[in-house]
């Protein structure tokens, strides 16, 4: 009983002192802002960890130019091996041990889902999630401290569907999709885009990420006599799909989803299959000759050369680095907008009232825009077609905003 009284007394005193003096925001001091991420640096997705290295280089560049409103950016990113369990552990370490101000651009749908409740319960911002799952922008009522960044996968699928309806009247569509939420989001979006023409899908086959090759699936799709092939795959599986199409002597109109469409990847698949493929684009691809003389990409390369830790020539053409810099650019603008009196609340407020023009690492003309009820920062994309070894954008900016 006496213990209880002591505890209660301590609690009362603690509460009183907390009320008297505003508790300093964790991760923010007069001269520093501490930001954290959890990304894969080992395991099968290790290469995607370069997103964090791009962010790191950009923050150092900003710091050299005086920081954000007089504060330097400190950045801690931890390896989760793309394992959500370890992402949870990293995030707790970031909040409790490293005392970060906000968790930013952590990678992967499930890894972000796993920590969303935790971050929202602790009122820690979960900013610009590196995932195209719609839920991160849509479910703000339940998770007010969370906001996405890239266009939702389902909207991307819908754009392909709408394109087919408008331009390919006699389409018979075959779909190769990764059999998880990511692939199924794209597929469901495309069906929505097709509307009444959804029955023009003549075959759809999922592959499991534990497969070693998707040739059997492509063989099956070819047998459906389709003339359009949607590749909603990831990494090497998309490359294998092009390979299989070529080996089977098939000549469909191919659509390939954004995540798999890096120019460096497209350049190494059989070109007779790749030529004419269509995809969407919103970030500048440093491997694409289209941007060889672009100011933004020049800036990207000079930053990475100067501030990257052991930058190789390979890194300078790696889209993960530019993707990281694009989000870092937006975060810096968000922090500026949140102002000198920086709190987690003011940061969320800034992140949900954003109008950013001229991000040098995304396509010209894209306006990054959010409101408290529309938490999808990038909702403008363009279509692009692969020909003669490079992507060429065509048509106007298209909306990828969830309806």
């Amino acid at each position: 009983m006496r213990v209880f009284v002591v505890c209660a007394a301590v609690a009362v005193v603690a509460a009183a002192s907390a009320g008297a003096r505003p508790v300093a925001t964790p991760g923010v001091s007069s001269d520093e802002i501490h930001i954290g991420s959890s990304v894969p640096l080992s395991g099968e997705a290790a290469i995607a960890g370069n997103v964090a290295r791009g962010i790191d280089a950009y923050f150092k560049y900003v710091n050299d130019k005086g920081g954000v409103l007089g504060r330097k950016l400190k950045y801690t990113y931890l390896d989760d091996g793309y394992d959500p369990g370890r992402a949870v552990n990293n995030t707790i370490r970031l909040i409790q041990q490293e005392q970060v101000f906000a968790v930013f651009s952590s990678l992967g749908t499930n890894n972000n889902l796993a920590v969303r409740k935790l971050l929202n319960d602790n009122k820690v911002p979960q900013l610009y999630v590196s995932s195209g799952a719609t839920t991160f922008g849509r479910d703000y009522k339940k998770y007010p401290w969370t906001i996405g960044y890239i266009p939702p996968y389902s909207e991307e699928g819908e754009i392909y569907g709408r394109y087919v309806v408008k331009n390919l009247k006699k389409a018979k569509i075959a779909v190769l999709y990764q059999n998880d939420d990511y692939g199924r989001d794209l597929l469901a979006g495309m069906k929505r885009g097709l509307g009444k023409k959804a029955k023009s899908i003549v075959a759809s086959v999922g592959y499991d990420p534990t497969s070693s090759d998707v040739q059997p699936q492509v063989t099956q799709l070819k047998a459906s006599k389709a003339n359009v092939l949607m590749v909603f795959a990831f990494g090497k599986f998309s490359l294998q799909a092009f390979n299989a199409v070529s080996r089977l002597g098939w000549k469909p109109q191919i659509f390939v989803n954004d995540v798999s469409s890096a120019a460096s990847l497209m350049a190494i698949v059989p070109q007779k299959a790749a030529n004419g493929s269509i995809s969407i684009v919103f970030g500048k691809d440093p491997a694409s000759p289209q941007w060889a003389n672009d100011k933004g990409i020049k800036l990207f390369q000079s930053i990475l050369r100067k501030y990257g830790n052991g930058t190789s020539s390979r890194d300078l053409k790696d889209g993960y680095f530019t993707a990281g810099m694009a989000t870092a650019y937006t975060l810096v603008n968000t922090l500026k907008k949140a102002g000198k009196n920086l709190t987690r609340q003011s940061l969320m407020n800034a992140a949900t009232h954003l109008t950013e023009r001229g991000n040098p690492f995304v396509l010209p003309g894209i306006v990054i825009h959010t409101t408290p009820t529309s938490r999808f920062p990038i909702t403008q994309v363009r279509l692009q077609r692969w020909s003669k070894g490079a992507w060429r954008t065509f048509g106007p900016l298209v909306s990828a905003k969830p309806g």
Partner: protein
Amino acid sequence: MPIAAFTWTEFAQQLAAGIREGAIYAGLALAIVIIYRSTRVINFAQGEMATFTTFIAWSLMNQGLTFWEAFPIVLAIAFTGGVVIERTLIRPVENAPVLTIVIITLGLALLLNGLMNLIWGGANVQFHGPFSTRTIDVGGVPVSVQDIGIVAVSILLVGLLALFFRFTKLGLGMRAAAVNRDSSRLVGVRVSWMFALGWGIATVLGAVAGMMIAPVVFLDPNMMQTILLYAFAAAVLGGLDSPVGAVVGGILLGVTITLLGRYVGFIGSTLKLPAALLLILVLLLVRPGGLFGKVAVRRV
């Protein structure tokens, strides 16, 4: 979900894809079997060793060498590398429990994977193999020359190995060393070097498997990780100490998985691997040594 109807043409193509797939498992399974035969150890690094040597081939070809110029150099590097690994990492723990050695091979796998990420980056790269990617018409079914080449190479390899183990003194010595170390020593076999030789040969086999598969699945540091799982299964199916079993097991597994995944709706792509493993388990219950393996008689 709409699913294409059955046609014999597609069935033949699936069968061909399955056989090709299986030949790739077989290549790595052979390497596993060779190390198991000579040292009674399962080498978890087999996949990463194969990928690493394939990356070396890729670098050489980037320097302007053709595939066939690079090929013997890579095999020589692979053989030396395998022997060096055995001498430096495995030899010090030769008498330790088997599990200790298995864990060291796992450490090696992690180390090599990390090194590949550091040296060559994690992205997929294109590997130009020795075979044309052209397709030819075999009785109305388009089959790629590459696929035929891959299957031919794995059959060739197992033939060469069979000759080696049956007719050369070295091959016989290796078999003897694996079966009974002490007796082999007494008759003058240099047992410890036989183990190193086994590692060297296995690394060469892995390198060949890597260079065969890389043009199909694209080269990256994780290229062999999934394939290693299938190769383990293939080796168990065929019998862990039988090279012929590895190849038969590999092709059988490739065909089974492909056809199960395609034609058994409930299994599909998600359950094809578990289903194949279940079949292997059932087989092992009937034949505990796999298709071609022998079960050692236990002594008291």
